[in-house]
């Protein structure tokens, strides 16, 4: 059969290489391996963005019934990504700074940067400004789970924390201790810091 692209049930367009059986096995030849791995990383990043997913775990390729089913397996050709290969791919993503291990100090699960922390910082600041929340103190929860869905809905706390840290470097935010734990206050870019 000729290899062709495929649109999944969630409307994601898989490239034709995803229907090639050997794509799901870790290639022994270094050049082939790096080509295949690069393709996997692109697919994972695009799909994460498509579905707003932030985490991949090595286990996700082992059992059915998680958000990554239609990516990490291909039922049409009866293949699934071998977990040891997924683990290698995750390591590559971390080394290319496209993800971090989350929680830290393990290598089974990563936090995906389909937007880099720098980009999240700008998205965050943009949202705070446009929703009129400058100068007020907000809890993390108010940011990641706002009553009206925002570009930041569901953002994992570690990523939010990184974005705030980046903003505080340019004096646009400050983390503040409040009664329920931690909060953050954002400052206008002009005027008093």
């Amino acid at each position, binding site marked *: 059969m000729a290899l062709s692209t495929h649109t999944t049930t969630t409307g994601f367009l898989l490239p034709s*290489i995803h229907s090639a059986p050997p794509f799901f*096995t870790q290639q*022994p030849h270094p050049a082939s391996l790096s080509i295949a791995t690069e393709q996997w990383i692109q697919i994972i990043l695009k799909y994460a963005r498509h579905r707003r997913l932030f985490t991949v775990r090595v286990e996700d390729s082992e059992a059915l019934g998680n958000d990554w089913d239609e990516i990490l397996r291909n039922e049409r050709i009866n293949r699934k990504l071998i977990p040891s290969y997924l683990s290698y791919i995750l390591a590559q993503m971390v080394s290319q700074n496209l993800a971090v291990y989350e929680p830290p100090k393990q290598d089974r699960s990563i936090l995906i940067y389909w937007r880099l922390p720098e980009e999240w910082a700008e998205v965050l600041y943009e949202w705070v400004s446009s929703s009129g929340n400058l100068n007020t103190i907000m809890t993390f929860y108010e940011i990641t789970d706002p009553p009206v869905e925002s570009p930041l809905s569901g953002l994992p706390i570690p990523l939010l924390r990184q974005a705030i840290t980046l903003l505080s470097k340019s004096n646009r935010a400050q983390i503040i201790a409040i009664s329920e734990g931690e909060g953050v206050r954002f400052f206008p870019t002009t005027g008093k810091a």
Partner: protein
Amino acid sequence: MHRLNGVGLAALDRHTTTSRSYDLLSNSLSQNQITHLQSQLVSFRSALTTFAIKHREDILHDPAFRHRFTQMCSSIGVDPLAGPRKGGWWAELLPSVGDWQYELGVQIVDVCVSTRERNGGMIELSELVRLVRKLRGLSVDQDGKGKGTINEEDIIRSVKTLSPLGAGYTIVTLNDGRKMVRSVPKELDEDQAVILALARAPGKYGRITIDELVLERERGGRGWTRERARGALDNMLLQDGLCWVDEQDNIHDRVYWVTSAMKWD
């Protein structure tokens, strides 16, 4: 009172005269248009020529510039490399740039290098012809006719001119007579040639197993020992990167996929 059209024979005469004048007028109009077009064409040619002479160094040496130039030429329907052999005007005007054979060589290298990731440095001659034609903005049909088209013979000759470069460009003829162009400096041994030919057989799309190479004896095939088959395939897989491996087949432990024989939509 005057009758504009006249009467009787006079009307007939008049009619003939009128239509003759119209003919004259239309002739001279279209003549004008043709002259105008020709002069435009001439000035376009000279502009393009001036451009090419002026930027000759860039065209020859700067890949990005050359790419844009060929793109521009193909978008206006001029093949910059249609050269001496086909009697193209380019060569008459610009013998220095129009070294057709060598330029074709450059395009061959372009295609070979840009598809190397996909096929591991082995490309079927017909596929190469198709891609070079595409690169030159020529129609992709197989008849090999049409102005400035190129064929397998052209490619073979050009590949030979590339050999002094020592980059390993060679034509490999498979057992079944099909030709492939290899762009990696590596001897293709007999067994690999057999495997490549088998991988391209109708319906295979690059999929090869050890069993196939061993068991094919009944169908008048190889009858290789298991060790020989495994050795040849593993060489292609591990040393040359000409194959990818699939370890999730239902029946076979390992299925080898010859990337240059896989069909991508």
